[in-house]
């Protein structure tokens, strides 16, 4: 019988929800792959977390516990995962697509000379092998990928499924990982938490966000700001707007910006890459303006306008002003 190895992840002293989502995916496909689920917990002083994972579907849980594993570091974590792979000989290794998952998983795949799939949001079993679905072209297309040889290493998009809820009997085994400070070519120094923002979008009732298609600060201020002002709302932006220096970082909405839940979110010329969607999809009501009827933003929008933003947004601004008698 084969093995699906779930790589658990600790954040702020707890196992991430994404770890239990991996367990859910693993348990869904395990019968079709004729495999059993095993897991790995990497950390320091993590016995209780490993016990918890074992009780919540992680199966036989390996615990790599070492003071040099207290924080994520690519060399030490690589050793821990490789030791677990050595021991369990998995057909499928699953990581969460988080900053440490995407940092380490491809290295493990290269070391094993194995296939690699990143940021999958669906896993199915077909003919005894896993089939993955993921986004390509920054969310504009979906791709279905099959695997010609096992093992395969994959990262899975956080939030793509619900965390495993059942409880199965499991066990915890300690895994010895030999590491010393001298082995570390990349050293963890510290984590800096986000500084307080001058602009707090999380408190805005209405947000009008613009994307890369605006083309520059000038157009952004000409199209987005007046609409936000007319609605009495705040301005927001997708990442390329901030990367290009059109607006400061505090306006960025998304996984590496702010997570917002306004009463109304208007996305203007934003394609709807997953990293943007996670920051705004829980808004109460979403209006999207985009010239591409296949843009993924329409998946989360309540109301979609297919058309040219340079025509529609100013017309909407005028209509709002007229309605308010401004």
């Amino acid at each position, binding site marked *: 019988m084969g093995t699906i190895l779930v790589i658990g992840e600790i954040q702020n002293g707890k196992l991430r929800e994404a770890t239990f989502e991996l367990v859910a995916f693993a348990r869904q496909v395990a019968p079709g792959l004729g495999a059993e689920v095993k897991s790995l917990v990497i950390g320091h002083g993590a016995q209780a977390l490993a016990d918890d994972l074992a009780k919540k579907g992680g199966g036989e849980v390996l615990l790599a516990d070492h003071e040099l594993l207290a924080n994520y570091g*690519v060399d030490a974590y690589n050793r821990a995962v490789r030791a677990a792979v050595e021991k369990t000989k998995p057909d499928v290794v699953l990581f969460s697509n988080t*900053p440490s998952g995407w940092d380490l998983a*491809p290295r493990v795949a290269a070391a094993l000379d194995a296939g*690699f799939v990143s940021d999958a949001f669906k896993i199915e079993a077909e003919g005894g092998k896993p089939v993955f679905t993921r986004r390509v072209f920054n969310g504009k297309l979906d*791709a279905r990928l*099959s695997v010609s040889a096992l093992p395969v290493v994959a990262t899975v998009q956080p939030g793509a499924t619900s965390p495993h809820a059942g409880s199965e009997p499991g066990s915890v085994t300690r895994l010895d990982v030999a590491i010393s400070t001298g082995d570390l*070519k990349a*050293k963890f120094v510290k984590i800096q938490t986000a500084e307080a923002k001058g602009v707090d979008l999380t408190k805005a009732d209405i947000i009008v966000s613009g994307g890369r298609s605006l083309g520059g600060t000038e157009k952004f201020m000409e199209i987005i700001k007046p609409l936000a002002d007319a609605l009495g709302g705040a301005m927001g932006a997708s*990442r390329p707007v901030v990367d290009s220096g059109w607006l400061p970082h505090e306006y960025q909405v998304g996984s590496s910006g702010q997570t917002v839940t306004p009463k109304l979110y208007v996305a203007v010329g934003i394609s709807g890459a997953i990293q943007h969607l996670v920051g705004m999809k829980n808004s109460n009501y979403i209006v999207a303006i985009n010239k591409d009827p296949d843009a993924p933003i329409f998946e989360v929008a309540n109301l979609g306008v297919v058309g040219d933003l340079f025509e529609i947004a100013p017309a909407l601004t005028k209509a709002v002003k007229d*309605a308010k008698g401004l």
Partner: protein
Amino acid sequence: MKLMVCLKQVPHQDARLDVRSDGTWIQEDNIKFEINSYDTFALEEALRVKDANGGSPEVVVVSIGPERVTQALRTALGMGADRAVHVKDADADGVDALGAAKILAAVAKAESPDVVFMGLMSDDGNFAAVGPMLAELLGVPHATSVVKVSMDAAITVERELEAGALEVVELSKPALLAVQTGLNQVRYASLKGIMAAKKKPIETKSLADLGLAGQVGAASRRVKIEKVYPPPKGTGAELLKGSTDEVVGKVLGKIKELGLL
């Protein structure tokens, strides 16, 4: 000091994405290509290290791809890179991430750079895999999602985590950095730069030249794309098409209904 920058040429971000007839990728004929957005930031960062060190570090740009890739390499040379290596081989078209990493590893072994700069991910495949894979094959430390670089005897970088948090990591050289977009403001190639670039060398290499004949390529792909297709539409979205007046009227009506006007 030598710096190597890995550049991928990808379909222009505004190019039409039509699925080609076999359904497994987009139709790439007659569309515009550009340097992968992440890689422009990687190149800029390498050029800044060069500038900060009196112009002495050599910046070598490397790209795997068909003939059209020379355009991307010329642009990079115009921006200030010193030399280019173009890996051109029918078997190198359509390599998967591990195949690309193996090819780049062969180039890196010949060049032995102090630092390899890459993009975090490609705008077409979105694998975000080649960087860490290449680091593993070379046995060097790496960091992904790099948003700040300070270079001394060692390299100190800031990695972007989630929701604005940053991780500070120190790497010994040689090392590989896979950069996130926005870590600098990317320069344009100046006219003088473009003229100078015409004299700079682009070396073309085949897989045989790199000792990789028959070892990478379509046949050794471990993961196969079965099909690509537009994402399914959400169930909730009401899509409005029509005259500007009509659609704006409907949006306004909705905003009123929400009690936000």
